């Protein structure tokens, strides 16, 4: 394990991480990445740098979010960090297992996660339970031998088709209100009855999946947290997700700088009104960066709270804005399908994804209104009804 702990100064954290990476990164990286990455991720995981905020006893460094961000920056600088496909496992699965897992579960899952030997996905949303996640209807029924038999359909599961395990919420009690009859499982995706089918997105990519669960049987040891209290476990995952989707701390060149460069290339920069719109987007990006720095400093080693929704909204608004401006500055390129405009076209079509994935902006606004500002919850006409009596979509 690398010599970084909670008492290390931020400057030292960055310096030691950089030194360690430069010393250990295999020669041939990143050109030869495909051949080298499995070994590198093991080395990285063992060093603690892949999971710096995890407690030391679970192979992390126990450092605060701001230190972790510096480490991530160093990894990014060397293009040596874990890929986006590992985000659900490292950023969501790890913290949830640490918070709720038994000793056996931590022992079994955390190490392979930190060393990229197992990939995870999230199995929360369903066709009928999107924004209203707690109305999920995938059922898990406990058998006499204690094992669970699970059937249902999940959707919007990123990377499920290439995952080893899934973070699953399923309904285990139909006779209580919706939030109170859910149990959380760590599902082996390789079990019989699990079928993940990639779902094509509007931009032509296929990152999401539909996942069909057909009489999948899992042992009771796959359950994370108490029976029927899976909603509370899920909240841990969701908070980590919102916070994790909000970009990196640090003030420096980013999306709007790239946009401005392209505007200069295509000539739109000479239009003062257009230029001013880019500057306004730039201001929005900078204040988000400053806010992210603040969030990381204020967060320390605490679990993220509802404030993460603020950055989630700001970040998705920024992505949309940049994508739309990217089309605006080169209208001819998109409509004529010039080669230069291919990326802008892809980004334009993807503009809304972040405003929907990880909880729509509407849901984030509810969370901010209710949990940050203390506004009353919407009247749910069926709030006290057992789940089985609720109208469902």
């Amino acid at each position, binding site marked *: 394990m690398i010599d970084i702990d909670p008492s290390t100064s931020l400057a030292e954290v960055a310096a030691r991480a950089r030194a360690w990476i430069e010393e250990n990164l295999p020669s041939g990286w990143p050109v030869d990445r495909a051949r080298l990455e499995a070994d590198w991720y093991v080395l990285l995981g063992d060093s603690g740098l892949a999971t710096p905020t995890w407690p030391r006893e679970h192979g992390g460094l126990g450092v605060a979010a701001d230190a972790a961000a510096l480490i991530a920056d160093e990894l990014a600088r060397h293009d040596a960090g874990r890929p986006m496909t590992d985000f659900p496992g490292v950023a969501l699965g790890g913290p949830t297992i640490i918070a709720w897992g038994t000793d056996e579960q931590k022992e079994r899952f955390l190490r392979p996660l930190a060393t990229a030997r197992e990939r995870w996905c999230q199995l929360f949303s369903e066709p009928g339970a999107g924004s209203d996640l707690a109305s999920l209807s995938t059922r898990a029924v406990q058998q006499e031998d204690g094992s669970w038999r699970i059937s249902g359909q999940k959707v919007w599961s990123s990377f499920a088709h290439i995952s080893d395990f899934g973070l699953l919420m399923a309904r285990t009690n139909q006779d209580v209100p919706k939030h109170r009859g859910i149990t959380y499982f760590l599902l082996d995706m390789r079990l019989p009855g699990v079928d993940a089918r990639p779902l094509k997105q509007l931009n032509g990519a296929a990152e999401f999946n539909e996942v069909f669960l057909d009489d999948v049987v899992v042992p009771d040891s796959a359950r994370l947290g108490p029976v029927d209290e899976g909603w509370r476990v899920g909240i841990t995952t969701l908070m980590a997700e919102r916070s994790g989707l909000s970009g990196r701390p640090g003030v420096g060149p980013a999306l709007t700088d790239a946009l401005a460069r392209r505007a200069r290339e295509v000539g739109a920069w000479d239009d003062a009104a*257009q230029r001013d719109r880019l500057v306004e987007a730039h201001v929005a990006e900078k204040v988000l960066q400053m806010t992210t720095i603040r969030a990381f400093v204020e967060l320390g080693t605490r679990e993220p709270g509802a404030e993460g929704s603020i950055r989630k909204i700001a970040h998705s608004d920024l992505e949309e804005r940049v994508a739309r401006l990217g089309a605006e500055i080169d209208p001819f390129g998109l409509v004529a399908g010039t080669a230069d405009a291919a990326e802008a076209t892809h980004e334009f079509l993807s503009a809304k994804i972040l405003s929907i994935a990880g909880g729509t902006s509407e849901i984030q606004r509810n969370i901010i209104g209710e949990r940050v500002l203390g506004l009353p919850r919407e009247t749910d006409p069926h709030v006290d009804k057992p789940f089985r009596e609720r109208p469902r979509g």
Partner: protein
Amino acid sequence: MSTTPFDWSDDQQEIRSLLRKKFATSSGTEIARAALEAGEDTGAAARWLELSAEIGLAGLTLPESVGGMGTGRVELAIVGEEMGRALVGGPYLSTVVLAAEAIVRSGDEDAAQAVLPSVAEGTTTLALAVAETSAAWTEPTTRHTDGRLTGRKQGVVGLPGADVLVVSAVDADGHTSLYLVDTAAEGVAVTPTPGIDPTRPVATVDLDGAVARPLGRPGRAHEVLAFVRENAAIFLAAEQAGGSRTCVTVTAEYARTRIQFGQPIGTFQGVKHRLADMEVRTAQAHSAAVWAAWQTPGSPEAALGADVARSWNSRAYLQNAFDTIQLHGGIGITWEHDAHLYLRRAQADAALLGPLSAEHQRLAANLGTESA
């Protein structure tokens, strides 16, 4: 025809209802999807012929002297709104709105008689090849020498498919003029490009000494194209109004039926108010396109109407298309849902005539200069 905008005649109402019925049975979204998957729209020509034969679509706004029905921009706007509403694409824009308008406005009777009768029948389709590196139709670099054209045109809507091109080029005297070129002629190479909107193909045309027939008198290209741009701006604004309307309709329907939190999501003001804003935008987009269509072509009012409608409606449709995706949540970002087809069309409609800065500059020039 009534001179009062929005005072629709019986004929006009009938055209609208005929088009709506017709377009409802040949779903634009299915065709768009097929074209997107295939990379080309293989059934376009046959469908166009059928529409023109059955309801005289191609000839509706063409002069009676070439076999058309001789109606005007109000009818053009009706076609635009209904095409936008049903996401119908195909050769209409390139053939009728752009190229035929150029031929008619060129005042070249011979050319009109040579080309437009078969256009009115639906057997010939056209394209306007005037853009090179910008949709603003700036001064061409394509050269005319000894009856032949050489140069590159990009973003030509309606290709592959069109039979005849209206091309802008500059001659040895420095005059910018329009020419007719047969796409089957030697020296004409068409390369399809992957434009964002699958409902109307787009291509690059390379002309290498292609035989060309002058269209109208030399040096009049800019004058003619100003009419064409005004015509296209109003047609596209109508399409945008129609597309915005469909976004409202489709999203309201979803909001009435999708249940979350035990209620249709349209119950929630987060959805309801956003839909109301979509409606406010759309109601005004319809007004703008129709008002503009009712003005005399080439008049200051038509110019004002075209600029206002293109500015408002471009943003309205784009915003409504984005809101449609947002309010559909996860399903809105799938390939299978039609939302992205509207978004693609919205971007194409907004971008086909270049950035809005030209419109805004014209509007700024007049703003505050009249007395109140």
